[in-house]
């Protein structure tokens, strides 16, 4: 029982990341009809926004400490962040400690701009081209972006910890009446799940309850008619691309304390997110969210030692197995519109 609860919890945070990325992917597919293989790169850029912001906060000047020596025996040069000079050491350190949550403020405009530039600069030229062309160009873009990041930040993962206040884990087991230590779950992962739920809720509310969202949904259903009504739907779709980029970027920012970001983290998530979109139904927002959590939880269960002893290697193929079954039995995906991907 404890093991099952534990793996459901594990699946939730994994599912949160899948759902957030897949939400953006399916939003872009649903609005612009573009299969965006560069979406994983947007997740990665978001994570590096957190890295960049944390580097901005730790911008330092060098002070020579005569009492200590460096590895060559010279007086040790110590970096002192400007924040220490501005706010004193304690406050400065506290701000630096909160770099990841604070970087959300920095990431949203950056990602909106990146999404806007990507759509206007490259992707709009591929609207009327076959999906294969779109996949090739966006995949190429993803490779270029990750190489650019590697050039500036190196190939090694960069530690970007959560604030000290969220270090450690919550003992669900003790709270639920089990033995202590049986069901533990890191605080930051709980925050990630709540954050994902809020973002997903906000995107749905935006599409559901605002005029802008209504027009976008109308455009998704029938682009031509909306255009004939004199509405510039392209402009709104471009904004949606920016929004999708921001969602992916935020997913990346909040993910940095879970795993130290590196340049290929986008690629690690990309394929899985596509499977999520396909399983959920291309273009279906609730489908992406449902499939994200479902596959996250399934993957966690498949990684259990007890399961692996019976079916070794299941953890590596479970998601693809589900995808095959869904594609064979229900090609439009769990919540896809009838007719989509079925012709």
């Amino acid at each position, binding site marked *: 029982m404890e*093991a099952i609860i534990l793996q459901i919890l*594990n699946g939730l945070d994994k599912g949160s990341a899948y759902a957030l990325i897949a939400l953006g992917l399916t939003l872009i597919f649903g609005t612009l009809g573009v299969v965006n293989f560069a979406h994983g790169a947007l997740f990665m850029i978001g994570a590096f926004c957190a890295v960049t912001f944390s580097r901005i906060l730790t911008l330092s000047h060098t002070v020579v400490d005569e009492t200590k020596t460096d*590895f*060559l025996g010279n007086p040790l040069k110590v970096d002192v962040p400007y924040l220490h000079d501005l706010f004193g050491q304690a406050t400065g350190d506290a701000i630096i400690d909160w770099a990841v949550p604070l970087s959300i403020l920095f990431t949203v405009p950056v990602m909106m701009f990146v999404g806007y530039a990507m759509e206007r600069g490259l992707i709009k030229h591929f609207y009327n081209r076959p999906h294969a062309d779109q996949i090739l160009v966006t995949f190429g873009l993803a490779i270029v972006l990750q190489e650019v990041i590697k050039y500036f930040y190196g190939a090694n*993962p960069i530690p970007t*910890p959560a604030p000290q206040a969220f270090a450690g884990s919550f003992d669900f087991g003790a709270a639920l009446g089990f033995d202590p230590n049986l069901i533990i779950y890191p605080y930051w992962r709980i925050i990630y799940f709540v954050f994902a739920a809020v973002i997903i809720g906000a995107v749905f509310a935006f599409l559901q309850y605002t005029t802008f969202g209504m027009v976008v949904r109308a455009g998704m259903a029938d682009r031509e008619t909306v255009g004939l009504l004199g509405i510039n739907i392209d402009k709104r779709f471009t904004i949606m691309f920016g929004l999708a980029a921001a969602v992916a970027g935020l997913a990346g920012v909040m993910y940095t304390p879970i*795993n130290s970001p590196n340049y290929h983290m986008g690629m690690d998530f990309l394929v899985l997110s596509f499977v999520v979109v396909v399983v959920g139904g291309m273009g279906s927002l609730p489908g992406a969210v449902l499939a994200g959590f479902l596959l996250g939880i399934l993957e966690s269960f498949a990684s259990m030692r007890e399961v692996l002893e019976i079916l070794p290697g299941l*953890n590596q193929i479970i998601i693809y197995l589900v995808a095959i079954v869904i594609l064979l039995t229900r090609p439009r995906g769990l919540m896809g519109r009838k007719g989509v991907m079925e012709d």
Partner: protein
Amino acid sequence: MSKSNFTRRGLLKTSAVAGAGLALPTIFTAQSAHAFTNEPTGGTVTLGFNVPQTGPYADEGADELRAYQLAVEHLNGGGDGGMLNTFSSKELDGTGILGKKVEYVTGDTQTKSDAARASAKSMIEKDGAIMITGGSSSGVAVAVQALCQEAGVIFMAGLTHSNDTTGKDRKANGFRHFFNSYMSGAALAPVLANAYGTDRKAYHLTADYNWGYTTEEAVKASTEAMGWETVAAVKTPLTQTDFSSYIAPVLQSGADTLVLNHYGGNMVNSLTNAVQFGLRDKQVNGKDFQIVVPLYSRLMAKGAGANVKGIFGSTNWHWSLQDEGSKAFVKSFGTKYGFPPSQAAHTTYVQTLLYADAVQRAGSFAPCAVAEALEDFEFDGLGNGKTLYRGADHQCFKDVLVVKGKENPTSEFDLLEIVEVTPVEQVTYAPDHPQMGGPEATLGACNNGA
């Protein structure tokens, strides 16, 4: 009247033979006039540095390349001479190798066996490299070593820790200075028993590939010999990024120690996840929960950040060593590049010097002569104390460092502290040890190539 024997059948036969001859890789034909593959004829000799320049180990590869460039500079008489001044063999005098100026070409292994073989092949065939060295993974080392054996050049392995490189996959033309999984296990076990006691229940998470298996086997064997019990050993996919599903059940198993047989990005992520889950704050079986990382590298420790604090592991070399050789190398490298070298840089620098010295002592670049000079060669002054290049398996035997993540680092390079220097006797094993492929493992015959 002469009768021509130019028949259709004859023409076909001749064409087939000629075609086959032309189709033979140049590696086996172009050097036929020479005594061995890529015999240097002019005033220079070319070495091939095959390191990961792209992919996840690119930073480690960059550090290896820096070390190689430094070694070439020192061999050609540039810089301050580095470890040439402390090396116990005094054959190298800064005039290149056998009077030939050292030049080099580089290849990108991408940490993929096929790409590494292709770049090594290109350096041998097109650039005339007489020796191939480098790499940051055991899969690559084993693949390139086999290629060098076929091609008839010497392979001086870079960072490769799997037992197999000089165990079941050992080759007559291949040599490894870096330590291996067996040595890590043998060095770590007594320190762990000392620090954490002999009554421990260990849970292994193991990267699902060759190096992971040999490391798990070595650490299990050595810790069980000390009295530890292995509760479970779970294989994790090499491509795994989030290890929460594997880490969460650890406490449920009753284990009080987690051994992470992971390297590179795997290690950074699994350790970060384990610390995130608060494992190190827990008490199990009345003891503090502990985590062990059998193979440490500074670059990995940097990626894991503060999570490495207090965690034991082993390493081949560390820049804080205070012997004359290490000090000389750190000074040269640090002055040139502005930061201390990594263990990957150290082993590749030393391998280059050892190769050059062996050529000098053999008086020939012929691979078999060089191999003979390296076999059972005893040396000192290169940073690990007295070292033996054992002839039976081409593995270096030297002291092994047990390290611990530092509590209060003074810089981004000052992340590990040496806990113990395990003497070589404690990590030495028989060449036919079961973990090394048993009695069937042989070097085979040395190959001079052309």
